[in-house]
């Protein structure tokens, strides 16, 4: 243990604790800007500096471990002056059109300037305007707002191992961006949006569909259906000041109905449907022993990651579409028929915790219905904005139900939103599909939680099925490299089934979540989904009556020809240099 004083208050912390964390023990919040609790600190901004007696200059508290006997001052005149000067220089170089900025009122730089009491900026405005990168269908990058804190690169390179963004040029000309300023849309970017949720300012945000959706809602000739991803119900409350992990399913339905959506349905329904398709696929591959391990395909960030960096895994991928796209394909076929609505009149909107879904819905192959299956994807943040624009406060709304015939869901569908959830849901149903009996203990604990790579072995009537779960690009890469190695040396992998989600924590940690997120919030949202699961009357996908009805009335049976046509897809190799499809 290290004993030292911070502002004359004695603290005792384990060796290696940084001054920033140690100060919290003394109830002092040292202001920070580039620091993010989930990322390795880079020391870029210099805002968190403190004075340590006997050490010349000021030290960055985010990276300096507290030493034995240190006498630290976090708010001495020298420190406070230095912080102000730095932030003033940053402001002088920042596009300060705060009122019209997407981050207005949630910008960390804005907050910091207020905390430090900065009233004027004495420095010359130096910045030249740079073009905004709108090349990506998912993410917009505005370099004029960028403060070069490096968080986006940290998360893109070290957590996701995508390396779409890099620091380019040098010194005052330094910019963060893609090679040759080609833009994110012409890069290996997987659209996961982790850069967006880690950006402290308004330099990264989603390519918004809010205006387009308002237009559809205001068009009397359109029939606008909406689906909401499992994770959204566990995070939308945060947009309205509710604590992370608040489950707002009923209020969410009520809000969407009040916005004018003609049918409020649920992606959880199609999550159950996905399990029917993917579970059946798993059972048949287990029987044949072919193309194992089977790998899940719900996460569009993960799909592009795999297509770009793991070409040899394409045959292992489940051909089942993601719940969003299954929903979309059915909305303009099954639903349209059942409700007697012309499919060309249907506008299919989804609400997702995800930015990659915007890319997924525009993939050219996603037109199984004969139309673009999903027309617009809104992130959780965007729908929050729309609800506020409509003068509604989610907290005050009543709890309502989803509309039929694509609104019912089971506990298995809802846990899709947390890492390990698809795996757990699939196990529940696969067990039934193989044995004809129900799995007794439905809680598959080893695949839950935020541990890096999770493994479990499931006994299905004497057949041992080894499964693994990875969340984040980096962990997926590590897991798949292991699989590659096993296949190269032993001819097969120890795993039969693998779940991958592109974002840390799964969809509850997606690129469409509320600003100011961190792993602790992601964890609480995941827990909320497991509580939702526990409270459902049905917890297995094959018990979803609406799903069973689709098969009876429309698809036949899982993996039928019609299912394949509407609910399954294919993958293409992409260049690991620029992410473009390789035409062979």
């Amino acid at each position: 243990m290290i004993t030292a004083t911070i502002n004359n208050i004695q603290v005792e912390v384990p060796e290696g604790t940084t001054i920033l964390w140690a100060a919290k023990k003394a109830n002092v919040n040292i202001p920070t800007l580039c620091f993010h609790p989930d990322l390795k600190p880079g020391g870029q901004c210099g805002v968190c500096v403190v004075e340590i007696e006997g050490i010349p200059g000021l030290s960055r508290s985010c990276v300096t471990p507290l030493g034995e006997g240190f006498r630290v001052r976090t708010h001495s005149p020298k420190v406070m002056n230095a912080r102000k000067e730095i932030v003033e220089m940053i402001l002088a170089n920042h596009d300060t059109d705060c009122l019209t900025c997407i981050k207005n009122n949630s910008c960390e730089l804005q907050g910091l300037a207020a905390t430090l009491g900065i009233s004027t900026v004495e420095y010359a405005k130096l910045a030249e305007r740079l073009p905004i990168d709108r090349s990506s269908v998912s993410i917009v990058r505005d370099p004029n707002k960028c403060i070069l804190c490096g968080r986006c690169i940290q998360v893109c390179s070290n957590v996701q191992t995508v390396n779409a963004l890099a620091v380019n040029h040098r010194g005052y000309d330094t910019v963060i961006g893609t090679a040759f300023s080609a833009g994110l849309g012409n890069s290996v970017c997987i659209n996961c949006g982790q850069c967006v949720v880690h950006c402290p300012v308004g330099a990264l945000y989603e390519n918004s569909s809010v205006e387009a959706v308002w237009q559809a809602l205001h068009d009397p000739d359109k029939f606008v259906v909406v689906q909401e991803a499992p994770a959204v119900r566990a995070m939308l409350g945060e947009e309205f000041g509710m604590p992370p992990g608040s489950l707002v399913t009923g209020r969410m339905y009520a809000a969407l109905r009040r916005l004018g959506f003609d049918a409020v349905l649920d992606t959880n329904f199609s999550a159950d449907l996905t399990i029917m398709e993917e579970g059946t696929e798993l059972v048949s591959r287990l029987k044949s022993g072919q193309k194992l391990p089977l790998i899940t395909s719900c996460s569009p960030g993960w799909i592009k990651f795999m297509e770009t960096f793991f070409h040899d895994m394409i045959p292992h991928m489940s051909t089942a579409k993601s719940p969003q796209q299954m929903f979309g394909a059915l909305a303009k076929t099954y639903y349209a028929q059942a409700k007697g609505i012309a499919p060309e009149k249907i506008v299919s909107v989804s609400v997702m915790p995800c930015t990659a879904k915007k890319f997924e819905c525009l993939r050219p192959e996603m037109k199984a219905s004969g139309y673009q299956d999903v027309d617009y994807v809104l992130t959780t943040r965007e729908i929050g904005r729309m609800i506020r624009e409509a003068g509604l406060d989610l907290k005050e709304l009543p709890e309502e139900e989803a509309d039929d015939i694509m609104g019912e869901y089971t506990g298995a569908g809802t846990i899709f939103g947390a890492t390990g959830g698809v795996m757990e849901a699939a196990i529940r149903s696969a067990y039934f599909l193989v044995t004809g009996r129900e799995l007794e203990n439905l809680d598959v604990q080893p695949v839950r939680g935020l541990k890096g790579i999770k493994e479990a072995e499931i006994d299905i009537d004497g057949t041992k099925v080894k499964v693994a779960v990875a969340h984040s690009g980096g962990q997926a890469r590590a897991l798949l490299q292991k699989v590659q190695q096993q296949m190269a040396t032993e001819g097969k992998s120890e795993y039969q089934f693998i779940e991958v989600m592109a974002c840390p924590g799964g969809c509850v940690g997606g690129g469409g979540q509320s600003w100011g997120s961190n792993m602790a919030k992601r964890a609480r949202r995941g827990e909320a989904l497991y509580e939702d699961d526990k409270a459902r009357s049905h917890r297995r996908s094959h018990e979803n009556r609406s799903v069973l009805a689709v098969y009876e009335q429309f698809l036949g049976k899982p993996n039928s020809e019609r299912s394949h046509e509407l609910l399954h897809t294919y993958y293409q190799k992409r260049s690991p240099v620029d992410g473009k499809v390789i035409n062979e």
Partner: protein
Amino acid sequence: MSLVRNHVLLSIDAGTVMAGARAVEKALVEEIAKQGLTDEIAVLETGSVGTVGQGVVMVVYPEGVYYSNVTPEDVPELVEEHLLKGRPLKRLMLAETPKQAVITKEKAGLLKEQPRIVLRNCGVIDPEKIDEYIAEEGYMAIGNALTSMKPEDVLEEVKRSGLVGRGGASFPTAMKWEFARRAPGDIKYLICNADEGEPGTFKDRLILEGDPHKLIEGMLLAGYAVGASKGFVYIRGEYALSIERLEKAIAQARDYGLLGVNILESNFSFDIFVMKGAGAYVCGEETALIESLEGKRGHPRIKPPFPANAGLWGKPTVVNNVETLANVSEIIRNGADWFRGYGTEKCPGTKVYTIIGNVATPGLIEAEMGTTLRDIIYEYAGGIQGGKKFKGALIGGAAGAFLGPDMLDVQMDFVNLKEYAAVLGSGAILVMDEGADVVDLLQSVLHFFKHESCGHCAPCRLGTAQLVKLIDRIAVSKGSREDLNKLLRISDVMRDTSFCPLGQSPYLPISSSIKYFGDEIGARIR
């Protein structure tokens, strides 16, 4: 060497080569052959003889006559007059033989008491011939060390010598080695920092061009003391001749079994690899250099961990400057006590300076630690050009400090200069005569920092840009008193909060220029 009557030592360095040294060499050899003197006169290539800007320079031994600005057209006359008839050609003789150019070489019969440790062989031996280095007792120190000294003994000897880093930071060399030696791990690395980028500094370049084997031997000894088996020389990409000579020297050393496995039949294995830098001043900072060696952008790393514990590829690593390592073989061969005979009690040894600006003979000199600035300028560099008045000097490159006219008698060493809020830094001395413009100089320095800031941290990236904005305004007499205050204020904050020494540096030239030349700068204020 003893059979020939005269030796002509032709200085081959980047400066003389550009002035046509190769053409002169060719003409010389041909003319000597034409006169039938081939057996009597030996033409030898050597590195820099210490002069700069004097065109093609050669020295004829045993007389020790210096010729400068020699052209191929001069050669027939020179050969006939001096080498055939024995009459030195006055017309081409260097007007005033600069002190630093006098070569201390007993064999040449030219013994002059000069403190030459680092540059002992520069300009004396042919740097492209390992045998000539060996003839000067080269590789004797590593031979002794491997046969009769433990690595700890080498470390102890260097510790006793009081050698501190010559790159600018003046950190005790042996202590650096000891940290890395004690750090756990089997694989350790030694890096020689030859990415000389401090404006006005070219000493490492001339050491590398003039005596590359001395660096190799120093690296061998350091590697032995630290427990490293691999050494890297990170060298400026622009130093084409240095790279060529060093690579040649490494190849020769490998041939002689002085690099590679089980050197001199000991258990010690060590090899050296040359890595070309790509032009970034910040790579002089050791962690940025390590990043660059790993193939990345040269951004400084967070410390701790320090390189001694986790450096190149996360392994314990020592980074030493060229000049520092060039001292080591002399210390081991002659002993720490001998080394301490030079310089001052607190700061033993010598320092190699590059002296430029308004002096009569700019160039490379080696002087004892503690030599006064006056001696360096007036004794070694021939005084101020054109007999003008000394106005001041910028010591230590861009990251250094200005000294005013009343500072001529300051003793130049790491410890003493600190008392005057100045630094020795890399050893660059830019001398100003009364006509020099301090604002111009400061403007150049601040532009340099802006251009070389790596951009990683906000205080340096934004601060250097603001400083340039301010000095540009002041330079055209459009600045205000407030602008001048801002220069100080920003650079002060930068000194306290920048991530690495680059951003911490502008304060010194700014504050010292205002201290000594405040009136002159003030006169430019609107």
